[in-house]
């Protein structure tokens, strides 16, 4: 069997994996604060004696796209969209500090300020708690204040906003973590209250990449069929000769 069939198989598999990442991005085109996954294809040559004629293709994900997504004004007091490259600190399920751009916050039954998935939002002194029966609001610098029924306004904490200089690692839970541990709070970080940041997936680019992946997959299938046809003809030759 001509070994070209393995090269075509690797190419087809690479295109399938590329399509998986593109589908993942396209599925999250409306997710709040989603950062698109970037991918790159690597060349892996086959090592051995003689000239290197076979080079496999391998699809790798190289990180996330950090451009800002579109901002949608919802008018809800606890919806925040971070400006620039800032991110909000939350406490992950494993207890470590993680960062996210999904700024849709709620107050849970115990009075903790949490994200929509229940993760506590970290302030400058740990998780932020809000007393019962108040109207909370968030200022552009992250200060959380509450207004009681009698009109008194008190501050209950300040959201920890960080501006990472290097790219963070995205964990399995979709939250971002810094490789060096915890990042310091950025006093100049700003956010927009009453707004949510959409996903930064570019649908045009994703569709064009999907067209390219599909056509390349077709080409690889054609090569596999050609290899099979060659093998069949060769086997027929041997049969007739014998």
């Amino acid at each position, binding site marked *: 069997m001509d070994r070209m069939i393995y090269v075509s198989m690797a190419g087809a598999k690479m295109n399938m994996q590329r399509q998986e990442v593109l589908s993942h991005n396209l599925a999250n085109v409306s997710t709040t604060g989603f950062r698109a996954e970037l991918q790159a294809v690597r060349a892996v040559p086959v090592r051995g004696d003689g000239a290197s004629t076979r080079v496999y293709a391998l699809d790798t994900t190289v990180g996330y796209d950090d451009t800002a997504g579109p901002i949608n004004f919802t008018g809800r007091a606890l919806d925040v969209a971070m400006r620039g490259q800032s991110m909000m600190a939350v406490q992950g399920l494993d207890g470590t500090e993680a960062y996210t751009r999904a700024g849709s916050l709620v107050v849970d039954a115990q009075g903790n300020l949490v994200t929509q998935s229940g993760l506590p939002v970290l302030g400058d002194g740990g998780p932020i708690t809000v007393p019962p029966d108040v109207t909370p609001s968030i200022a552009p610098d992250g200060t959380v204040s509450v207004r009681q029924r009698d009109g008194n306004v008190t501050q209950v904490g300040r959201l920890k906003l960080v501006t990472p200089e290097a790219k963070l690692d995205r964990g399995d839970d979709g939250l971002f973590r810094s490789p060096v541990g915890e990042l310091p709070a950025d006093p100049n970080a700003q956010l927009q209250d009453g707004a949510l940041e959409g996903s930064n997936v*570019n649908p*045009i*680019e994703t569709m*064009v990449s999907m*067209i*390219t992946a599909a*056509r*390349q997959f*077709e*080409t690889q*299938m*054609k090569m596999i069929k050609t290899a099979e046809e060659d093998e069949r003809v060769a086997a027929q030759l041997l049969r007739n000769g014998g």
Partner: protein
Amino acid sequence: MMRSLWISKSGMDAQQTQLDHISNNLANSATTGYKQSHAQFEDLMYQTLRQSGANSSEQTQLPTGLQTGLGVRAVATSREFTQGTLQQTGNSLDLALQGEGFFQIELPDGTTAYTRDGSFKLNADGQIVTNNGYLLQPGITVPANAKNLSVGNDGTVTVTMPGSTALQNLGQLQLASFINPAGLDPKGQNLFAETAASGTPQTGSPNSEHFGTLSQGFLESSNVNVVQELVTMIQTQRAYELNSKAIQTSDQMLQKLGQL
């Protein structure tokens, strides 16, 4: 894979950016002092496959070359600072600028921002502030029981105090102008910030040279031309369709390639 796929994709992205600007203009067609903006495009770099002017033999040169362009990208936002029409409101603190110049606003963090939005109010201390509570510079404080606040077209603010018929002069408003107002940074809230591209502000009083006049009781509406925006929107939509047609054609050509 095929260059034309990615070139058309850049075209669709550019038309999307233009549509973003058009939507912003239409959304702000009733905003006081809003200046409309459009995206400007430039062609991307070219790949030279055959250099023009290169020697084809010892005596002859190539008269033209072979270059492939790589698409388009949005390179700038051009903001048009043309005069908006004046609408009469009758509020004594609604000021409209006719001509050049910006009002100077002091932001809470101490920096100065500039605006054409002249809908001012008085705060609890009698200072003239914008709709967001930012102070107008230079600070003018109106005494508590003043009547008949009037602003001349050169910016002098006068009131009459009870018990006297004489006009009391409270000060003169100052405007700022820039060499390159298109280089100002829009910050939202109808404010602009100075940048290195806009130049340093020149201050002066209204109705002096380089500055326009103030009209009390009027507001400058936005300079968005709705008809022009709709026509540009039609053009943008058709250009988007044409680019998507080019993508479809490239796709069909690739399909033919796979059917060999």
